[in-house]
């Protein structure tokens, strides 16, 4: 137990020494706060929710509107803040849902072994045989275009990654002496899985999850960009890029630029943070890097 505490303490210390990870964390907290408190931070909250302001169409960035306005006169800062609510939540929900579906399946496969393991692994093979996004497009199209259907579609194509990760971790934990001991004295499987295996496999899954949120945001933005995600009058960052696309080369560059930057920086921040957490959680990597 004592060793475990030293381990966690030194991991946190190590993470805080990683400048890129700390800056990323600060950036993500700022983005998250501006999303949560968007209604109180902007005077244009109603425009953020989609209400047009036809007297202020296509205003270039200036003092009143730092990021300009769109074709319906909506303040792009407000749009971006309200868009963050959807883009961030899509990324996080996709990863959470994928973990909730994938981790138990992977644990079951690793714990039971035998034909069940084989069957589950072959099923994940089938899901991973699709190029990313492709299956999600098909499922989202089948379900109908909407925010929640986009999340569902991506999560359904993403869970196999977590199933495989959970399985590999379960396999390595299962062989440990205390699990063998617990089984030999007749502790029920359910108890072993919940008490002993689950806590031990969570760390790598959380690390992977952090890394994946950035990618999930990108994929979700992609679905929104082609029209299968968030629907008007609401917008996420993908939709905003799509809305500004046709005006981009004709001088109204701001509409697509800022939401693109938002996705870019957020995805980068999740990557740096995830890398930092991964290295901090793995002593072997710390030595190598």
């Amino acid at each position, binding site marked *: 137990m004592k060793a475990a505490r030293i381990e966690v303490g030194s991991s946190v210390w190590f993470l805080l020494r990683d400048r890129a990870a700390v800056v990323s964390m600060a950036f993500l907290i700022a983005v998250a706060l501006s999303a949560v408190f968007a209604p109180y931070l902007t005077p244009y909250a109603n425009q953020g929710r989609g209400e047009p302001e036809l007297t202020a169409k296509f205003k270039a960035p200036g003092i009143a509107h730092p990021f300009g306005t769109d074709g319906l006169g909506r303040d792009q800062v407000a749009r971006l803040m309200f868009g963050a609510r959807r883009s961030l939540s899509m990324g996080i929900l996709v990863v959470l849902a994928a973990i909730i579906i994938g981790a138990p399946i992977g644990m079951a496969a690793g714990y039971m072994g035998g034909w069940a393991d084989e069957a589950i692994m072959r099923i994940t*093979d*089938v899901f991973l045989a699709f190029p990313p*996004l492709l299956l999600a*497009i098909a499922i989202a199209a089948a*379900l109908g275009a909407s925010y929640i259907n986009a999340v569902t579609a991506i999560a359904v194509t993403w869970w196999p990654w977590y199933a495989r990760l959970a399985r590999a971790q379960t396999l390595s934990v299962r062989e440990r002496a205390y699990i063998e001991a617990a089984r030999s004295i007749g502790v029920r499987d359910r108890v072993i899985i919940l008490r002993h295996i689950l806590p031990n496999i969570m760390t790598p899954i959380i690390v992977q999850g952090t890394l994946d949120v950035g990618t999930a945001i990108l994929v979700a933005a992609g679905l929104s960009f*082609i029209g299968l995600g968030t629907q008007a009058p609401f917008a996420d960052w993908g939709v905003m890029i799509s809305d500004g696309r046709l005006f981009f080369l004709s001088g109204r560059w701001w509409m697509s630029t800022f*939401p693109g930057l938002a996705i870019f920086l957020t*995805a*980068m921040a999740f990557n740096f943070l995830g*890398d930092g957490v991964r290295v901090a959680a793995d002593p072997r990597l710390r030595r190598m890097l």
Partner: protein
Amino acid sequence: MAFLSFLFRRLGLSLFVFVGVLILTFIVSRVIPSNPAALYAGARPRPEQVQEIEKKLGLDKPLSEQFRVYVGDLLVGNLGESYHSRRSINTDLRLFLPATLELVIAAVLIALVLGIPTGVLAGAYPRSPFDYATRFAAVAGVSAPSFWLALIAQFIFFSQLGWLPLGGRVSRDATLFYPIAAQTGFYLIDAAVSGNWKAWLDALHHLILPALVLSAYPVGITIRMTQASMLEVLSETYITAARAAGLSRGVILFKLALKNAIMPALTVVGLSFAYSITGAFLVETIFSWPGVGKYVTEAVLNVDFPVIIAVTLVVTLVYILVNLLIDLMQALLDPRVRLV
């Protein structure tokens, strides 16, 4: 012998996966939608259209029977027709698939040529300024939304610098005055075969920008994976042994370690391919590139479901074949698999 048994196992697995893909796409197209016929009929269908399609797809029959018809059609190579344009999807794909593959292959090549040497050097000199710069670039590459990058690239290289065309596969001049005789559908190949070098240059000119944009993500993962695999290999005992035997750094890095590091790095070819396809689906519209990506995005707008399912199936089949090829190549390169 070991290789043959590997070959058969691997072929078996691919076949199995393909059957799984058939089942999964069947589920997506017939089980998930609440009313498949309405979905197939497109946006705002008339009731009699829906009924017609219901009969055509056999939706009144049990699922097992439907599946038999579905697979039967696919086995004879019939992908159905678009209810939006009323065109055969086979014909459309024959036109669009080569365009996308040409773009994707170009992006994969860029990713390998740029990514592997960079990753090797970054892995060989850990904690050097080059390593840090490379890692930053790699993260940037995997974080930029491709459809946004496409717009920025057009702004810089078309609007500002005027170096590269805005979009399309060839310019209007080329189509009018020196048209490419389509054989394979890969313009660079077709133009080269017929000695139409003007058109070849023109096609290359059009290919550069979209291929570069698509390669951003693959370059990022190629760098990351090569660098990680290089780091891993350099910590192996056989590298210490090579140093202890007095081999020079150059030989160790570029002869010994590179060969070991390139094996796992070959998997990035598959990944690069997959991500380039994903990218193609998002940016082809922006570049007016007449490929399957543009085809699908238009199908999404027109609620043209049969097209979406058919493209999903065909592109996935291509991806399965690519992965099969890569695995076989890896096995051939590895004496531990090749020989016993």
